[in-house]
Structures are given as structure tokens and as C-alpha cells.
């Protein structure tokens, strides 16, 4: 079943066409990375999918036209983690993660034992158990990012949309985060995640959407989609692709507009790799 289906999606902000004619569909079990330079429309795409910005075209979530769904019903299907890590009040980490269960509660009902187990699992998955009783405003930026991801996981929806969840995490926790996302995708969920780190995207995502100036530049398997030519064209950086432990990794070397110096550096690294 198609969990997310976009047809000809467009978003305008003032005179600027932020997204233009975006179409794709995502099924259960896919971990889809959305990549593209700053301003390409990654965050807007995610916001449009859950109806936070006005858009044209059609959006279907689990077979339902998103505009016809009640916000509460949509919240039971999609968990969204925005790029901004705003927390207004100093709740404890445990209470904050438990907020993720509110969309599944009806009326004045309180969380059940099962809800608490889901919260506990989310906290353990993101390895923030030691912070359970800490005040969210007193933890570090990376820890806050992990707690907020635990909140999204606690929503326990079939679709997870996360906007740059790896930003600000140390390398160990970036890998840990991607492993968690990969695991929940393998469990049958649909995960849409925007990333700036091309190596994380190439290594962990089952599919990549490449956005450039609001348009879909490429859509497919990372091995097919991502190469040095695309990186140079879309991200305006010369890079070399190296293979480390059987995984492809991209090493950005210079900006395209910096002339031949960068190109020669890239060529020299390529030559060393080939030697």
C-alpha cells in the first residue's frame, strides 16, 4: 500500500515557487532520504505532506486525501519532527517523550500501561534513559535532539517524517539514529528523513529524493542516484567517491566556483585512490 503519495505538488511563498511539480509515492518499509542544498525545498516538502503549508496538487496519506482528514486522525498516521528544536517549558525528559502519546488518547482518557511501555521503548531506543528525570532545558543540544526524536518515535505511527534529525549529533549518535530509522523501516514503517550528510544518506537510505531549487532532480536507489557528477551539479561541490569497508563515501573537496584548484585537488585524490 502507498503510505505517502504526492502528485504534482506545488508550494508558493510570495513570488517564489518553493516546490514545483513534485510527484512520488512511498510504500511501507522504505527509508527515504531527502537531500538537496539549502533552500532546495526539503523542509517545505515535509511540511506540505502533513499540511503545515498550503500547497497545490494532491497529497494522499495511507490512501486518504490529506485535506479531507481531521488533524487528530492524521496525527495517528504521521509523526513529524521539525528542524527547530523548540521546547517552551522545562518538562522532564520522560514527560516530554510521553507527549508523543497524546494524539492516541481520546477525550479525557489517561495514558495506559501500554502507552508507558511505548514511551519507555522510545527513550531506550534513543539512549536517553539516563536523562529521564532531567529537565529538557538543561540537557545539551545533541541530547535534546535525541529526546525530541524519542518523542516522535513514541507517537508510534506508521509514517515518520523527520527534518534533519541528525543535525547536531556526534558521529556515534548519527550512526545510531540512522540504524534506528533503518530498523523501524524494516519493521514496516515508512520513514521520510531530510539529511545534509550525503554519506549517511548513501549508507542508510533505501531510496533518495534529490531536490534542487524546488524541483525533483532525481529519485531512486542511492547507488544509482548519487555520484560525483550529481553532487557537483546539485550541491556545487567537487567531491570524490571513495569506498570504505564496502560502503561508498563522498569526500567534498572544493566549491565548484573556486576554479581549477579544487578540481585538481579532487583529481589528485581520485588518482591516489585509483593507484
Amino acid at each position: 500500500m502507498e503510505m505517502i503519495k504526492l502528485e504534482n505538488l506545488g508550494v508558493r511563498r510570495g513570488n517564489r515557487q518553493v516546490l514545483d511539480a513534485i510527484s512520488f509515492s512511498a510504500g511501507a518499509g522504505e527509508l527515504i532520504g531527502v537531500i538537496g542544498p539549502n533552500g532546495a525545498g526539503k523542509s517545505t516538502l515535509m511540511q506540505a505532506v502533513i499540511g503545515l503549508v498550503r500547497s497545490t496538487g494532491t497529497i494522499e496519506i495511507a490512501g486518504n486525501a490529506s485535506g479531507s482528514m481531521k488533524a487528530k486522525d492524521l496525527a495517528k498516521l504521521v509523526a513529524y519532527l521539525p528542524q527547530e528544536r523548540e521546547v517552551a517549558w522545562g518538562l522532564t525528559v520522560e514527560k516530554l517523550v510521553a507527549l508523543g502519546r497524546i494524539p492516541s488518547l481520546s477525550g479525557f482518557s489517561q495514558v495506559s500501561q501500554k502507552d508507558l511501555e511505548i514511551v519507555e521503548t522510545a527513550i531506550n531506543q534513543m539512549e536517553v534513559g539516563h536523562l529521564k528525570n532531567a529537565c529538557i532545558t538543561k540537557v545539551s543540544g545533541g541530547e535534546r535532539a535525541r529526546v525530541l526524536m524519542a518523542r516522535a518515535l513514541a507517537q508510534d505511527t506508521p509514517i515518520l517524517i523527520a527534518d534533519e534529525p541528525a543535525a547536531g549529533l556526534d558521529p556515534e549518535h548519527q550512526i545510531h539514529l540512522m540504524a534506528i530509522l533503518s530498523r523501524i523501516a524494516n519493521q514496516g514503517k515508512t520513514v521520510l528523513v531530510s539529511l545534509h550528510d550525503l554519506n549517511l544518506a548513501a549508507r542508510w537510505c533505501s531510496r533518495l529524493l534529490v531536490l534542487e531549487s524546488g524541483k525533483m532532480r532525481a529519485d531512486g536507489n542511492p547507488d544509482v542516484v548519487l555520484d560525483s557528477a550529481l553532487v557537483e551539479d546539485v550541491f556545487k561541490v567537487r567531491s570524490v567517491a571513495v569506498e570504505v569497508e564496502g560502503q561508498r563515501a563522498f569526500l567534498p573537496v572544493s566549491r565548484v566556483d573556486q576554479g581549477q584548484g579544487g578540481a585538481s585537488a579532487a583529481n589528485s585524490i581520485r588518482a591516489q585512490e585509483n593507484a
Partner: protein
Amino acid sequence: MKISARTFALYTALYTALILGLILAFFTSVVLGPASIDVREGLMGLVGVGPEPVVVVMQEIRLPRAILGVLIGMTLGLSGAVLQGYLRNPLAEPGLVGVSASASLGAVIAIYSGLATLFPMALPLLALAGAAVSGVLVQMLSGKGQALTLILAGVAISSIASALTSLALNMSSNPFAAMEIVFWMLGSLEDRSMEHIKLAVPFMVVGWLMLASVGKDLDLLTLGEDTAVSMGVNMKRLSFTVITGVAASVGAATAVAGAIGFVGLFVPHVMRPLVGNQPSKLLFPSALAGGILLSLADVGVRVITPDSNLKLGVVTALIGAPFFLWLVLSTGRRELQWR
């Protein structure tokens, strides 16, 4: 969320202390006054037993005043807690959405036009009308219910209402009317009757019910508007509920007692750490604590100046203003630490 046994015990202790405190504050307010009536005689008078003057003082002067102190304090505490949660700002208070200033303008029009002299209930009725108009205008101006637009709309409405109130004072040819306006604007529970209570209570109860229903939405707003919307919060409906709830309850409070500041700012801030900073858990304790604070402030008014020169709004401002200053300074320090 489900709470641990320890948290349950803490909440039970807090609620018990607040409810007992409110009952105590209410009885203190009933038994204390310029007329020297001893406690037993006063309580008998309250149920209509004893000398006629005592019964009149207790039933027609002290009882309405004590009841209004509790009701208005609860209104200000609850609406302050809701607005701070809704706007995600500890500096928010009921006056911010323009309701108090507009209700005051309605009352001032009643005094200025002489309607209040001809028909005493014209004053609270026009004040309620002022609150209703401001509620509708803020609702219209705030659009999709985003916090910043709501604040701007509230400030705009407040400014217009204050300007028109100043105009009425400026143009008032009758110095007694001008003085009455000024005294009314200072806020007081003096000489209020059961009629005032009957007028205010229905609006207050409707407002309270609306405000008490938004707890879960306020909890979700802790994570920002985008996340809250993605988790099922309908910002437009929430904004309607909050503004209408504040307009009805604070409008009714202002209509019968004038503008009483700082309670709505002070009380939620004091209660917040006691409930683990969770907006939904803050509502009930803030209402109770608001009732206690205003009742005690009114007792203070009567004890300090039995000849009733001191107005209640002045006392709450005298308590609240230094607190506000401390709040600004401590918030500033926290901001610096975060950087």
C-alpha cells in the same frame, strides 16, 4: 500522563494545601472587616441568625465581597495560566489580549454617559459588552491563531481602548465622574452585591469550562506550533476557545471589580515549578492560588486602611510589580546563561 506514586502524593499534598488555603482565605475575608463583629456572631449572621445589622453586614456586604474575591482571583489565575501556556511565554497575562482594557472602556462609557447613575447594572453590562467586542475583534485580527499575531492584535485593541478611556477622562466636564472613573479603574471589591455575582458567575463558569478544556493542547504547544499542529492541535479552534474563555471570564471579572493586574502573571509563575512545568497541570492550582491571593489581598486592603482609601488593584500591583521586575531580571540572566 500516568503519574508515579510519589508524584501522586505531591499533587495530593499540593491540591489539599491549596483547597484548604482557599477555604481559609475565604473565611478570613468573611470574618474580617471594619465593623467589629466577632467570629462566632459573624458566622451566625451569615446564616441569618442574630441582630439585624450583623445579618445585613455579613450577608449583603462581606459575603458578596468574599465570594467575588475568590471567583475573580480564580478567573485571573486560570486565565493567566492558559494564556502563558498558549503563548508559550511566562510574561503573558490576561490583560495582554485586550479584554481588560476593553471592559474598562465599557465601564468608563457607562460612568461618563451617566448611565451608571440611572441604572447601576449598566456599568458591568457595558463592561461585559466591551469585553465581548474585544474578544470578537482579537479573534478576527489574529487570523489562524498564531501566538505572535494574537499578541499584536491584543496590544492594538488594548491601545485603542486605553486611548478612548483617556479621551473620556480628558473630556469629562464633571470632576466627580472623572474621579469615579479613576477609582473604578483601580479595581475594587468594595460595595459589591449579590447582583454583581449573579451577573458575573454565568460568564465566568462558561469561560472556566472553555479554559479548562485546553490542557492537552497546551501541553503539545510546549513543542512549538508546527509540532502541536502535526499532533492534532487545531490552532484556530484553540485560539477561539482561549480568547472566548478569557473574554467571558476576565470580562465578567473586570465588569464587576475593575481591572486588577498582576494576579494572572504572578500566580502561574509561582505554581509552575510545583507542577513540573507542565501547562495542563498548572491550570487548576493556578485557579486556586489566584483565589487565595486575591482574597488575602482584599483582606490586606481592609486591614491596612479600614476607611477604604486603598484600592485592591493598587495592592495587587504593589505586590506584582516588584515580582515582575524580578521575573524580567531572572529571565534575562537565564537567557545569558543559555548563550
